[in-house]
């Protein structure tokens, strides 16, 4: 990997700036889950994904499926950083006719492989991509990011069981374990008990990391790609902070789906080092 930890962290910082700008401009959207996932996306895209930004439909590309499709600002930010779309395109977030639809949409945005927005669907879709890759005898992988609240959808477990049954070693899942869902903390809405044990019991390779520690993220991605884990599907459980990087959004359920006001926006830009206090 030629990209250094510091460089990935800078990519993530720039993405955080764009996330906050997108949601601020639209005065709507989902900053919390975008900020929790962004260190993972920055590392995945800048060091692992085999894709061609100038040829987004390249048939043998790795697939990335953002199953928690509401966290689209994070996805759009990294796609812009990688060159799939322009930074100007980011201004179209939630705007009529814009490539940056409210939830990620493969029909609208280059680099988006799945039209998400309804939770519990991306893992199944990723399983289909992984099966197709195997039939094609291709080395391409399907990476899927799911949320923790999303695991309350029963269909996630249909897919978890089926992917292990079919021994899909080319299916790699990252769980953004940010502990907050729409209405409240996950623990209040629906306790999920021992999450790693659940996935192990379904037949998956499991590793836990701090999803904001770039060195640990790289170890986690190594785990997903490791040859010894190619016997079946693998999941990286990344412990993250909802709203991570913006003090007043961190661990605050109010910023699952709410935009900052003018003062909050200025503060965020200061905290991200974009402007001086």
């Amino acid at each position, binding site marked *: 990997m030629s990209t250094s930890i510091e460089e990935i962290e800078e990519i993530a910082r720039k993405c955080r700036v764009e996330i906050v700008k997108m949601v601020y401009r639209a005065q709507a959207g989902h900053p919390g889950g975008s900020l929790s996932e962004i260190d993972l996306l920055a590392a995945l895209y800048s060091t692992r994904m085999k894709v061609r930004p100038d040829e987004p439909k390249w048939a043998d590309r790795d697939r990335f499926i953002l199953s928690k499709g509401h966290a689209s600002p994070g996805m759009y930010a990294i796609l812009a950083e990688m060159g799939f779309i322009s930074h100007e395109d980011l201004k179209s977030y939630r705007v009529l006719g814009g490539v940056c639809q409210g939830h990620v949409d493969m029909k609208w945005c280059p680099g988006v492989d799945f039209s998400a927005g309804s939770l519990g669907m991306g893992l199944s879709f990723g399983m289909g991509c992984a*099966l197709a890759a195997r039939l094609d005898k291709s080395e391409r992988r399907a990476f899927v990011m799911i949320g923790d609240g999303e695991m309350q959808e029963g269909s996630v477990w249909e897919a978890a069981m089926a992917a292990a049954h079919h021994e899909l070693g080319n299916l790699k899942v990252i769980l953004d374990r940010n502990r907050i869902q729409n209405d409240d903390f996950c623990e209040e809405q629906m306790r999920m008990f021992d999450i790693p044990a659940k996935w192990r019991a379904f037949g998956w390779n499991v590793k836990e990391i701090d999803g904001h520690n770039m060195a640990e993220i790289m170890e986690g991605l190594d785990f997903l790609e490791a040859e010894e884990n190619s016997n079946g599907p693998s999941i990286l459980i990344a412990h993250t902070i909802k709203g991570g990087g913006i003090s007043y959004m961190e661990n605050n359920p109010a910023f699952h789906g709410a935009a900052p006001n003018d003062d909050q926006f200025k503060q965020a830009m200061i905290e991200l080092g974009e402007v001086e206090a």
Partner: protein
Amino acid sequence: MTRMAATRDGYGQALLDLADNEKVVVLEADLGKSTKSLHFRKAHPERTVSCGIGEQNMLLVGAGMAASGYIPFASTFAIFTERAFEQMRNGIARPNLAVHLCGSHGGTHTGTDGSSAQSIEDLAVFRTLPNVVVMHPCDDVSTRALTMQLADTTSPSYMRTARNKTPVLYDDAAPGLIQIGKGIELQTGNDVAIIACGVLVSESLKAAEMLAAEGINASVVDMHTLKPLDGGLVDALVARCGALVTAEDHNVIGGLGSAVAEHIVANVFAPLEMVGVPDRFGESGQADEMLEIMSLSAPHIAAAARRAIGRK
């Protein structure tokens, strides 16, 4: 003697016929023996995906494969396709991925399994989805022909097949006659047009015989494709007959009758009588008994034709 066959057998045969296309894959949810995809599975296990009893996952696995260049044919009972309606909506219809869903054992004609297995709303719910082709063929020959054509379409589809045998109405030597989106006038008449789908096509032909004995000349149409509806044919039938009957083993709400009604109120209007399940659930019974208690059999269709003519 008319040959009897089940439409699901035509589906199973078509999958085998399509197997030369290496992009064709079959997805099952533990009902391949019933939907007849099992023949493909036995011949091509490497291209058959068992999804267990998990219809929601099955449809989106299909979406992922379709997005990767494959042509997935997924099947289960019609009633269980409805469990995955939102997957069909958000994961398949919205991105317009050509996943082909087959729901077998549709309608009250399914019989003794009872109301839990008798889908009477599948055609309605899938008809509401943009991009989705909706079909309900009447015999094994047309089911086979239409399924074969699906492999070349770029839209997702829902096709209902039936569990029980019905008269075979087409012979194998009629290529080109059976086309997705094109209704087929099986019998030409001028007094009333009976537009039917699925198991009620043969009942409609029987009804036409009853009407002929009274001097009424009925046209009978196999409208195997509900969406896109063959509006040109409906317009022609309105112009020629001036009265319409629709006949379907499906709730009168939302199915073929509704599709025809939606068309004629926006185009050239004619009296329309709808024969269908009268907005109630079924029960256990033999197929012919179900058609009788649901008022779907030939005498009921003939009576509807007389009412339609009386409203001219």
